[in-house]
């Protein structure tokens, strides 16, 4: 049966769509009656050796997979597929207190207040000279528009900026080749009130006239990575889906896919699927920056949060920005063009040479490849076919290089190897298709399980891809692993792309829903990884660096506990004089100065998470005791042979009680103060 399925798969490329559909049916029925039959097919015989990283050895690459609806980034080693870390970005993480402790709560502040969750779709590595440099990872929050920056020295979220005039920050964040700008486009157009700023009011019947999209240009500081919203381009009210920057000859340009160019405001499933062609928007970012600098930009009121982690205090601080500058494309000739592209396109991917732009029209039957040099000529010759909101629209043929015919069904996303080939995911026909960028011929097909969304080749979006591996992120898992009830993890597959034919190597489950990923050779990140924070450099105002200095102080109904943790005790570990209804803030400084010795802190009954304190850092947990009693607290992260003994008590007395504030560590003799650091 498997042989038959394979034969049909091979035949499929020759026979086109009808047979492709039929094959899909046959394949499905095969999988249905015998679990496991599909698993073995196509797996290379020496696959185990290719992905085996012996105990104690390190992976060749770091990969960063978005977590989609978990709002986090998962870090996996490649080729082993081992999970190395989960980085909380837009979502609170009870596991380490991110978004729960006082230091990180401001990171999740927005103009809508505290938003503890988001939908993180696209991680993008920072770049130097068009190549991933391993310094930072940018990621978008789709639901409440935000862009985050993760520092790859610490694998921590260090900055989150809200994006005004946007809704559904999906088309984001796309760095230019030296991080001059991070671009962020809105997926949901909304009415923008340019007088009062921000979201305006409109009847939902007025979509066509009143709704606009925005593309934000975020500047990145070369040295410290800090973001700043420089300006926005207000664009027609389409849905902006994905983007990618040019390189080489097309370096000054960024390309955006759009759909719903029909501008339907309801039942978009149908309404946005009527036009045979939507648009690929091309924006000359250098020219846009020039226009903005030369006074073409308008300004409107705005209200958005910019949250940044201070390195010394290890505390996030929010600032609220009140204006935003914007450009109108109709006033900026030569800045923006539209290329007709079939049909409701998803991915837009520029090949390593920067000449070819591949548009993955998810409802299209072919894969159009546009030519940058032809686009330049068409601009010169004014080869236009009308305009939208003052933005010239090219004739399809005048910028088309060619089409990959019958690539498969439901093309979503393409990346490239370093040998001139493109690899495209086919969501509907559940396969990856390898094709040659020059002659547009399909070279190979690999069935994947099941329904791939995005794929990732390390550096596959840069000018020099690392053409050894490909990670395919599948949307449907079904029978690939032992069943775990109705909810299954998504599944990624690792494919060897070093040879002429793709070789299936490995399945590995992924957290929530990866929408995209990035990868980088380990050498660019591992040597910079911080082992612990230096206590001497801790400038947290509530830090105590020696057990001599611990204190418990009451100010009205707030009690501050400035305490320390070191193997294997807290100081103080006996606290009295707290009253019901007090707001108690435990400021815990981890005095350790060694690698991998975090201490956790949790207190009984707290309507809060624990907090996990890295060596040298100070973190603060808020607790409001509701009943009188004696409350134990303890270290939650197994730190030493006496970890279980690392605990203490807080005595909570009734409101108005006369028990004084009192605190201590150890009974018979005072424990000699721990040395914060030596020398």
């Amino acid at each position, binding site marked *: 049966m498997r042989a038959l399925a394979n034969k049909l798969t091979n035949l499929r490329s020759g026979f086109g769509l009808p047979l492709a559909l039929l094959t899909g049916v046959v394949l499905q029925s095969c999988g249905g009656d015998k679990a496991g039959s599909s698993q073995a097919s196509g797996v290379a015989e020496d696959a185990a050796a290719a992905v085996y990283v012996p105990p104690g050895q390190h992976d060749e690459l770091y990969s960063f997979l978005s977590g989609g609806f978990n709002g986090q980034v998962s870090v996996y080693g490649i080729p082993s597929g081992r999970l190395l870390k989960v980085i909380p970005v837009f979502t609170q993480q009870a596991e380490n207190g991110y978004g729960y402790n006082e230091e990180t709560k401001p990171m999740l502040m927005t103009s809508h207040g505290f938003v503890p969750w988001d939908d993180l779709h696209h991680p993008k590595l920072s770049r130097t000279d068009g190549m991933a440099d391993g310094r930072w990872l940018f990621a978008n929050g789709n639901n409440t528009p935000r862009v985050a920056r993760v520092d790859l020295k610490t694998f921590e979220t260090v900055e989150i900026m809200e994006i005004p005039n946007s809704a559904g920050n999906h088309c984001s964040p796309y760095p230019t080749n030296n991080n001059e700008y991070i671009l962020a486009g809105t997926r949901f157009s909304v009415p923008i009130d340019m007088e009062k700023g921000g979201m305006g009011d409109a009847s939902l019947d007025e979509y066509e006239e009143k709704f606009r999209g925005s593309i934000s240009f975020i500047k990145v500081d070369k040295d410290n990575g800090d973001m700043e919203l420089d300006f926005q381009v207000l664009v027609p009210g389409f849905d902006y889906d994905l983007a990618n920057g040019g390189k080489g000859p097309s370096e000054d340009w960024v390309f955006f896919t759009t759909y719903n160019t029909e501008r339907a405001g309801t039942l978009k499933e149908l309404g946005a699927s009527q036009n045979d062609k939507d648009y690929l928007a091309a924006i000359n970012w250098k020219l846009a920056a020039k226009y903005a600098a030369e006074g073409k930009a308008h300004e409107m009121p705005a209200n958005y949060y910019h949250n940044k982690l201070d390195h010394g205090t290890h505390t996030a601080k929010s600032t609220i920005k009140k204006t935003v500058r914007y450009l109108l494309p109709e006033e900026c000739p030569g800045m923006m063009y539209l290329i007709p592209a079939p049909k409701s396109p998803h991915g837009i991917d520029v090949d390593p040479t920067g000449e070819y732009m591949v548009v993955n029209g998810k409802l299209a039957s072919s894969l159009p490849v546009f030519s940058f040099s032809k686009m330049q000529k068409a601009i010169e010759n004014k080869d236009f076919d009308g305009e939208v909101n003052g933005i010239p629209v090219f004739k399809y043929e005048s910028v088309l290089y060619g089409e990959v015919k019958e690539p498969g069904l439901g093309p979503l996303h393409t990346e490239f190897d370093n040998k001139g080939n493109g690899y495209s995911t086919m969501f509907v026909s559940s396969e990856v298709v390898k094709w040659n960028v020059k002659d547009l011929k399909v070279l190979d097909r690999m069935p994947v399980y099941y329904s791939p969304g995005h794929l990732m080749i390390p550096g596959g979006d840069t000018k020099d891809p690392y053409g050894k591996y490909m990670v395919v992120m599948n949307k449907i898992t079904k029978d690939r692993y032992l069943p775990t009830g109705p909810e299954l993890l998504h599944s990624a597959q690792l494919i060897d792309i070093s040879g002429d034919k793709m070789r299936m190597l490995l399945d590995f489950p992924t957290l929530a829903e990866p929408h995209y990923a990035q990868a980088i050779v380990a050498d660019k990140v591992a040597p910079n990884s911080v082992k612990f924070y*230096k206590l001497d450099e801790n400038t947290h105002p509530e830090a105590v660096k020696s057990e001599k200095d611990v204190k418990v102080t009451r100010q009205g109904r707030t009690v501050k506990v400035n305490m320390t943790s*070191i*193997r294997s005790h807290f100081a103080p570990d006996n606290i009295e004089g707290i009253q019901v209804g007090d707001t108690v803030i435990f400021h815990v400084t981890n*005095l*350790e*100065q*060694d*690698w991998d010795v975090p201490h956790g802190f949790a207190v009984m009954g707290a309507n809060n998470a624990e907090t996990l304190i890295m060596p040298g850092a100070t973190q603060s947990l808020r607790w409001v005791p509701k009943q009188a009693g004696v409350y134990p607290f303890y270290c939650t992260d197994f730190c*030493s*042979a*006496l970890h279980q*003994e690392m605990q203490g008590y807080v005595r909570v007395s009734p409101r108005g009680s006369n028990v004084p504030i009192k605190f201590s560590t150890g009974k*018979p003799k005072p424990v*000699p103060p*721990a*040395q*914060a*650091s*030596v*020398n």
Partner: protein
Amino acid sequence: MSVYLRVVMIVAALSLGLLFLFPMWKIYLQAPQYPEGLELHIWVNKLGGSSESVLQNFNILNHYIGMEKIHPDSFAELKYMPYIVIAFMVTGVLVGLLGNRKWVLVWVLLLAVAGAVGILDFYLWLVKFGTNLDPTAPIKVPGMTYIPPLFGSKQLLNFHALSLPSWGALGIFLGLVLGGLVYILSKKSMKTQLAS
């Protein structure tokens, strides 16, 4: 004494300067959960190690067995030893300049005695730390002491301890050997001078 030997004597004296550039002794600790190892470096004037916080990390480990905290302030030696070394360097250079053979011998012998006393002192500290354990320590192994080796290796619970002289000690060694050579060779040269 020939100019050549005087220069060697001065080199012998100056080689003690290595003590200010490198540790005298290193104690290496290794355990399964310390793949990177822990090193305690003993200098003539300070304690250091493989990382800035090595003493704190030694002390955290040692507190389980009730060992006293190691702190540079506890060692008066670290304060006066540098002066002794400087004194040896200055007098050594003077001896070289004077070219007096007897003084060379005195210098070498004093240096040898000082070195031996230093090693003995070091050993006594190791014994003191290794045996003077807090009776309320969380981990008590009957009969167990934790004297690190003076020279060579030893297993202390989960730690493999290795103790070796380091480049600073080479300074003393060079001082002794070169000074000794000057003494011996100058005797020969005196004989040849007498014979001629």
